């Protein structure tokens, strides 16, 4: 695959604080790349540097091998979907969507043709004469997407585009966005702090922590083979066992529970059930380890026969292959 964006050892400082420490990253044409990290870790700053609203303190950003440092935002062939949508309040849905084509002086017939297509695509045809204020959050979100994709950008930058919506709507829009990206073939750089969202949508995830990218890989690889302690604990749930200078991470679904008097060869630790939370399809069981200040979490699925009660003595074990060794 072809590289579309390349970040070459870019760094961003505000005054004297380093917000994004120097790093490099290549983004491939047509991929769905997610920047995932907790609030304040520098995701928006990174996206704004790509869009051109912030200049990297050092380093260079390339689009199709061309350096961007002297290209203003309005000449970069990419579009951004803003966190709060940033729809123009004094324009109708239609005028908002057409704004980009107007600025690029596309002829009127072409404008109308693309407008109809996009309105159809995001199902806003009926609402075209409304102003943003007269729309619900989900509809505003569609306008923001439509306003960006009508320009056929090389890259679409999305800053927590679903962050302001409620859970159900978010779930369904995640799939829609993913399909949209596949159908249009536009490269997506998607920012979120929601790891489930990142897992559901991305081709690759870049996990960020304090401005640093800790790991870039496919969702499955991020989940199964985290490379740092931060990635292991930020993505999904994990149990971290500290043993002679290393950390071993074992996912709760890989932890097996045994009665203390059977399968003795599989026992790794002993403990007591401290709590059990019923979640419908599974139960989260918390085990207080003996002689160690640590609680282990294990998933117990319906039908595996053993019904643990709080206070029960239990032994835990896991397969060596399910253990991920992390540097401290």
């Amino acid at each position, binding site marked *: 695959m072809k590289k579309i964006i390349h970040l070459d050892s870019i760094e961003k400082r505000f005054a004297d604080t380093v917000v994004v420490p120097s790093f490099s990253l290549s983004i491939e044409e047509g991929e769905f790349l997610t920047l995932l990290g907790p609030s304040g870790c520098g995701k928006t700053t990174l996206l704004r540097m790509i*869009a051109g*609203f912030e200049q990297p303190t050092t380093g260079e950003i390339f689009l199709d091998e061309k350096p961007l440092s002297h290209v*203003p*935002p*309005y*000449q970069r062939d990419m*579009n*951004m979907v*803003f966190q*709060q949508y*940033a*729809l*123009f*309040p*004094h324009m109708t849905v239609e005028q908002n969507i057409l*704004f*980009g084509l107007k*600025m*690029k002086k596309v002829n009127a017939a072409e404008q109308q043709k693309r407008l109809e297509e996009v309105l159809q695509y995001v199902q806003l045809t009926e609402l075209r004469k409304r*102003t943003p*204020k007269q729309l619900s959050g989900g509809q505003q979100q569609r306008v923001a997407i439509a*306003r*960006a994709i009508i*320009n056929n950008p090389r890259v679409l930058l999305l800053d927590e585009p679903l962050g302001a919506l409620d859970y159900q709507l978010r779930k369904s829009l995640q799939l829609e966005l993913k399909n949209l990206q596949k159908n249009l073939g536009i490269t997506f750089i998607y920012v979120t702090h929601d790891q489930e969202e990142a897992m559901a949508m991305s081709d690759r995830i870049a996990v960020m922590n304090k401005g640093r990218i800790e790991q870039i890989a496919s969702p499955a690889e991020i989940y199964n083979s985290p490379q740092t302690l931060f990635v292991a604990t930020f993505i999904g749930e994990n149990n971290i066992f500290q043993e002679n200078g290393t950390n071993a991470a074992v996912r709760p679904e890989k932890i097996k529970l045994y009665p203390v008097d059977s399968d003795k060869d599989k026992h790794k630790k002993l403990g007591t059930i401290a709590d059990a939370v019923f979640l419908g399809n599974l139960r989260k069981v918390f085990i207080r380890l003996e002689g160690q200040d640590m609680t282990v979490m294990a998933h117990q699925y319906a039908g595996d026969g053993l019904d643990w009660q709080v206070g029960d003595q239990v032994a835990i074990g896991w397969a060596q292959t399910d253990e991920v060794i992390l540097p401290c």
Partner: protein
Amino acid sequence: MKTLRGNALSGYSWLMLVFLYLPILILVLYSFNDSRINATWTGFTWKWYVSLFENRQVMQALMNSLTIGVISSVIATVLGTAAALAVKHYSLRWSNIFNGLMYLPIVIPEIMMGLAMLVLFSQMQMELGKVTLILAHVTFSMPFVMVIISGRLADMGKDLEEASQDLGATPWETLRYVTLPLIMPGIIAGFLMAFTLSLDDFIISFFVAGPNSTTLPLYIYGLVKRGVSPEVNALSTLLIVSTVLLVVVAEIFRRKDSKNNQSIL
């Protein structure tokens, strides 16, 4: 106990209002008094207003006030808007200092401003008249325009302008299609405010006016020196009414919700 305190408080508020507005009320009342002597009420009349409109000097002063008001507030609005935009967009280290210096004229005693401008104009050997009045009025009203528009710009945030640039609009196109339409209520409010300030100003105008550029407040002052006549009352009443109206309209525009301003565009 509670209601007693409430009553006392509302009584006090009423007293404050009376204290503030009684002089104006009396002035307005006596502008309709049939008698030429202010102290006694003899009946209702419009005749002082009629005689105002027949008085050529009054009409000349009114014309002067309107010309100076319109020209100076147009200039102040343009400059004030430009200054507010500049301060927002070039958030350089010294933009705070610039901001402070822009606002300073609001708190400097007017008499100092007037004096300073008189000194400046005579240093530059400028003849006192309409031009000096316009320059002076621009100087003191521009900061007010800037305050109003800066507030509007701050409400707007930077997202919309960035979205515009992101969609391919150059900075000029962004100004024209996004920023200006969105701050238009603020610009109108600023203009009305500048116009009101210009119409009302006495102290600074007193220093920089010439013989042929008497404005309404200066004319009223001239009349008062010869005693308070019912015409003065009538003229002042008109000035007060137009000022209040202008300020109310300006305030309506200033408060217009920045997210719902279709109606005036």
